């Protein structure tokens, strides 16, 4: 299954690993902030409706 | 008429603070703005002076006739009183300092560094700057802060003089300066909170 990467295996694997890790961090950070902002906005609007 | 305001709204930090303002300012007229702190008097003056765009409405008037004096006097502490005044005179293309010096009793302070003046003396120098601009419309933001009673009287006298010479003045101040002035209370023009500044309400 695994292709033979020869003597450059470390380089290729670390390039893939690093890139995917950076992408994952970016996506996770975007989703986390999205969820956080969404939650606080909804909480705020619910409170406003409750008051008014 | 030197300044006409039609349906003006002004905003601070993206929020409209005053709206629906209509007034005119004629030569020889003084208009006093009143209202509690934070009601938008400074914002209105800055808008009229051209430092920020109106949120809505029109300002009809020539910006080249306006001299603006803010809370801060714009003095350079290492320059002398004379140098400070002379600089602003040059910027506004005038040359005669003596009326301004006389009006605010600065004659004895001329060679003192502005940094060595008391708060009241600095304020007097800041107001003297208006006189050297040679401009017709004075816009003053809390001009009497840190002035003593006799200096306030000097200031009121200078304003009366300015009005007599077909000048006009727009002042944001809490105290009665003892000259005939139209009073505009800005409180009724406080912007309604219905308008969200940018995005529509109920966005989600």
């Amino acid at each position: 299954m695994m292709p033979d990467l020869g003597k450059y295996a470390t380089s290729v694997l670390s390039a893939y690993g690093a890139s995917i890790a950076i992408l994952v961090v970016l996506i996770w950070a975007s989703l986390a902030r999205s969820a956080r902002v969404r939650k606080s906005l909804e909480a705020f609007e619910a409170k406003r409706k409750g008051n008014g | 008429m030197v300044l006409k305001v039609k349906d003006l709204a002004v905003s601070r930090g993206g929020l409209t603070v005053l709206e629906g303002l209509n007034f005119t300012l004629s030569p020889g007229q003084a208009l006093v703005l009143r209202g509690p702190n934070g009601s938008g008097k400074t914002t209105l003056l800055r808008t009229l002076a051209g430092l920020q765009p109106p949120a809505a409405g029109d300002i009809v008037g020539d910006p080249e006739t306006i001299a603006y004096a803010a809370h801060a006097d714009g003095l350079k502490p290492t320059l002398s009183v004379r140098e400070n005044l002379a600089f602003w005179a040059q910027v506004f293309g005038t040359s005669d300092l003596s009326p301004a010096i006389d009006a605010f009793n600065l004659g004895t302070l001329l060679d003192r560094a502005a940094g060595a003046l008391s708060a009241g003396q600095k304020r007097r120098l800041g107001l003297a700057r208006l006189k050297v601009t040679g401009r017709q419309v004075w816009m003053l933001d809390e001009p009497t802060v840190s002035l003593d009673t006799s200096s306030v009287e000097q200031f009121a006298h200078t304003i009366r003089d300015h009005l007599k010479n077909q000048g006009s003045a727009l002042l944001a101040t809490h105290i009665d300066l003892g000259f005939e002035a139209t009073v505009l209370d800005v409180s009724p023009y406080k912007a309604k909170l219905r308008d969200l500044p940018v995005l529509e309400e109920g966005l989600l």
Partner: protein
Amino acid sequence: MSERRSLWEYANPRKFMGLSGTILPWITIAGGVLLVVGLIWGFFFTPDDYRQGSTVKIIYLHVPSALMAINAWFMMLVASLIWLIRRHHVSALAARAAAPVGVAMTIIALVTGAIWGQPMWGTWWVWDPRLTSFLILFLFYLGYVALWAAVENDDTAADLTSVTCIVGSVFAVLSRYAVNFWNQGLHQGASLSLDPEENVADIFYYPLLVTIAAFVLIFVALVLLRTRTEIRARQLRAYMARERMQ
């Protein structure tokens, strides 16, 4: 359709939220699928290059990320111009949302470039004009992001960052030219380059196209998601500011 309908309608925050909410899942799925397909194709089913060996597989990440690093800046430039000219808030917020994505793309391009360079050039870093340009681009991104973070008022921040983006673009192009001139003597031969136009055969090229498409879609999805977040955050700040006034 009435004649007033136009593309600009989607600059309205409400319309934007509606449309972006509908298409975001599809773009995300398409981007994810293409990325998996492209990377598996490239990683498992392409041969090694006869000179570069298996390191040629790095191009499936390096080239798309490098392209997106530049395209993200270009998108920010266009969005900044739209904000300055037409004052659509969504545009300014989209530029803000794109910047961190551009930063990440630049980092991926730099890291994969360095990892590729280590066995090929015998060193992690050479002051190759292309690598150096990306480093400079990275610095421009940092300044842009820092400026957004430093200015409190949203409209002021949008105005300042837009002007910075335009001025920065001119200087970025100038830097690219300067760097080329500065290191012309040491330029690496095209035989050992990650540039697809110079030495990539068809067999490597098709999976590369797939990953490029994947990166474009992922970029769009992330920018849409982050723009939605920025719009909500803006709305929240507007509520808060209003509450303080009462």
